[in-house]
C-alpha cells in the first residue's frame, strides 16, 4: 500500500451507483503514486468515465474512501472538491477541449484564472500567466505564429497539444488524459504521448492516461485494466 503522503490517488472499497440503479463501479484498491505515469485501459462501458468523474470530484462515491493528493474526496463538500480539481487536476479529453471564442494563449492561461495556486505556481516559472502558457506551448511544439489565432483554425493534433498545455500550466499534481490520442493519426500519437510524458516529468505531475489502445501502454510506468479491478464487471460477467 502506498503511504498517504506520497499517493496522488488512493481509493479503497470504492463503490459508485447512479441513484436507483445498479452499481457501476466497485474497486477494492487503486493507487497512483506521486509523479507516477499510469496507463488505464478498458472497453467502453467499463466504468472509465465514472472513475474519472469520481477522481475529478464531480461525482461522489456511494461508499468507500477516495483520496486525491491527501484530500479525502468522499468527505469533502462539492465546492471543496471543485477547488481541489481547479488546483491540482488537469484534464485532456478526446476532442473539443478548447473554448472556440478564445485565442490559443488565453485558452491555456484560463486554467490559472480559477485557481490561485496554479496561478502562483505558473508565476513561479514565468513572469506572467501568458508567458508561462507560451513557454509550455513552445515545449509542446506549437509555433509562435499560432499563439494568437482562434483555436478553431488549429488542426486536431495542435488542439490536443494546446489542451495538454492547459492541463499542465500551474503544475497540478495529477493530469488525467481521457483518450487524448484517439482522434489523432497513429504517427502523431507516439509523438504526442512522448511530449506529454516529458512535460509531466519536468513538472512532477502524475499522469493517469486512459485509452483502449493497448499498444500505447509501453510508454508508461504501469498499466491497469479497469476490468481487472472493477468487481462489478467481474460479477456481471
Amino acid at each position: 500500500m502506498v503511504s498517504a503522503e506520497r499517493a496522488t490517488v488512493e481509493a479503497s472499497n470504492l463503490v459508485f451507483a447512479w441513484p436507483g440503479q445498479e452499481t457501476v463501479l466497485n474497486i477494492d484498491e487503486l493507487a497512483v503514486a506521486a509523479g507516477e505515469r499510469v496507463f488505464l485501459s478498458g472497453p467502453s462501458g467499463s466504468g472509465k468515465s465514472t472513475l474519472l468523474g469520481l477522481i475529478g470530484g464531480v461525482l461522489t462515491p456511494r461508499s468507500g474512501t477516495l483520496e486525491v493528493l491527501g484530500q479525502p474526496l468522499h468527505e469533502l463538500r462539492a465546492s471543496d472538491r471543485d477547488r481541489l480539481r481547479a488546483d491540482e487536476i488537469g484534464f485532456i479529453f478526446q476532442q473539443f477541449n478548447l473554448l472556440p471564442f478564445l485565442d490559443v494563449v488565453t485558452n491555456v492561461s484560463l486554467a490559472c484564472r480559477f485557481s490561485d495556486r496554479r496561478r502562483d505556481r505558473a508565476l513561479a516559472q514565468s513572469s506572467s500567466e501568458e508567458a508561462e502558457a507560451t513557454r509550455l506551448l513552445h515545449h509542446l511544439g506549437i509555433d509562435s505564429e499560432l499563439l494568437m489565432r482562434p483555436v478553431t483554425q488549429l488542426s486536431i493534433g495542435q488542439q490536443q497539444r494546446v489542451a495538454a498545455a492547459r492541463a499542465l500550466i500551474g503544475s497540478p499534481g495529477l493530469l488525467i488524459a481521457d483518450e487524448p490520442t484517439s482522434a489523432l493519426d497513429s504517427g502523431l500519437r507516439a509523438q504526442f504521448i512522448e511530449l506529454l510524458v516529458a512535460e509531466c516529468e519536468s513538472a512532477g505531475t502524475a499522469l493517469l492516461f486512459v485509452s483502449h489502445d493497448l499498444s500505447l501502454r509501453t510508454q508508461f510506468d504501469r498499466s491497469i485494466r479497469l476490468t481487472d479491478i472493477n468487481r462489478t464487471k467481474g460479477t456481471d460477467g
Partner: protein
Amino acid sequence: MGSAATVLMLARESLANRRATAILTILSIAISSALLLGVERIRTETRSGFMSTVSGTDLIVGARSGDINLLLYSVFRIGSPTNNITWQSYQEIAGQPVVDWSIPISLGDSHRGFRVMGTNTDYFRYYRYKRSRMLTFAEGQAFEAVFDTVLGADVAEELGYRLGEQIVIAHGAGATSFIQHDDKPFTVVGILDRTGTPIDRTVHVGLEGIEAIHADWNEGGRAPGQSLSAEEVLELDLQPEAITAFLLGLKSRVATFGLQRKINEYPQEPLMAIIPGVTLQQLWQLIRGVEVALLAISLCVVIAGLIGMLSAILTSLGERRREMAILRAIGARPWHILALMTSEGALLAVIGVSLGIALVTGLSFLTAGWLKQRFGIFLPVQWPGPIEWLFAGLVLAAALLVSLWPAWRAYRNALADGLSVRI
C-alpha cells in the same frame, strides 16, 4: 484577475463570438426600450409643456363651446374659435372689482403658417408662463403703433426676420392663404425671448391692427369698391367690436368660482369661463386611455424584445454544453456557470438599454423641431428624467430576471454533465 472578472471576460468573448445574434438581440432590446422611454417622455413632456404654458391665469373666457376647445385655441393655438365675444361684454367683465388684470385675445389671421394674435400691451405686462416667468424681449419692445408687430422667437428665427422688417398678414389660419392683407403691412418692432411654449410661434399685433386690416372688409371678404388705404384706416375709430377670448387674473383666487358662475350665467350673450388647471385635467382624462394604450403597447414590445433575448440565449445552450463542461473541468464552480450565463444576459441588456436611451435622446433631438412645428409639442432635448431612469432600470431588472432561466438550465446541465458531454 479575479474570477468575477474572468466570468465577465468569458461572457464578453463568448458574445463577441456569436456577434450576429448578439447584435440583433441588442438591437431588439434597444428599439423596444427606446419606444417605451419615448412614449413616456412624450407623455410627461406634453403634460409639463401644457402646464407651463398658462401660469397665473385664473379664468379664460370665450364664447360658449367646449371647455377643452376654448383652452386649446385660446392658449395653445390648436383648433379654431367658434364665435366671438362683444367688446362690451369684455369691458363689463374685465371691470368687475375682483378682476386684477385682463388680456384680450383676437384670433383668425395668420402669417406664413404662424398664427396671428391680436391683444394689447397688458399681454406683455401680465402674461406668465412656467410658473411665474414674464415675457421678455430679445430685441425691440412692445407694439405701440397700429401697424406694429412683435414676433415669437421661432417666427423670427425660422423666417429670418429682423427688427424693422415689413410683413403681410393673411386672412385665415392656414399655412397658405390666398387672401392677403397686402395693402397694410406690419413692421416688426420687437422679438420675444424663447419661452418653449406656443408663444414662440405666434405673431402678436395690437387689437387695433386686427381691426384696421379688416376695416374695409365685410362678411369675411373684401368689400368691393370700398378699399381703404393704410393711411385712411388710421383715421377711423379702431376700437374693436368683438374679440375671440380673454384671460383674467383675479385679485384673490377665492373669487374664481363666483366669477366663473357669473360669467357662465351672463345674460347678454352665451359666454363660458374655464379654470385652466381644471380643464387641463379634463384633457388628461380624455387622453389617458390613449396614453395607457400606448404604454401597454410599448411594454408588450419590451416583453417581445426580452423574449427574443431569452430565445437567443436558450438556443445557444445546447451547443454550449461542451463549453460549460470544459469550464467545469478546469475548475469553474457551478456558480461560475450561473454567473456566466446571467452576465451574458446582463451585458446584452445593459448595452441594449443604453443604446435605447441614446436612441430616444437622439430621436428627440432630431424630431424636436418637427414636433414643435407640426403639433405645437415642445419636447426639450435632455437627459432622461427620473421616471425614464426608473423604466430603464425596470427593463434591466426584467432582463436579468429573464436570463436567470437559461442560466439555471445551464447550471443544472453543468452539474448533470460533469466533465464529459456526449452530444
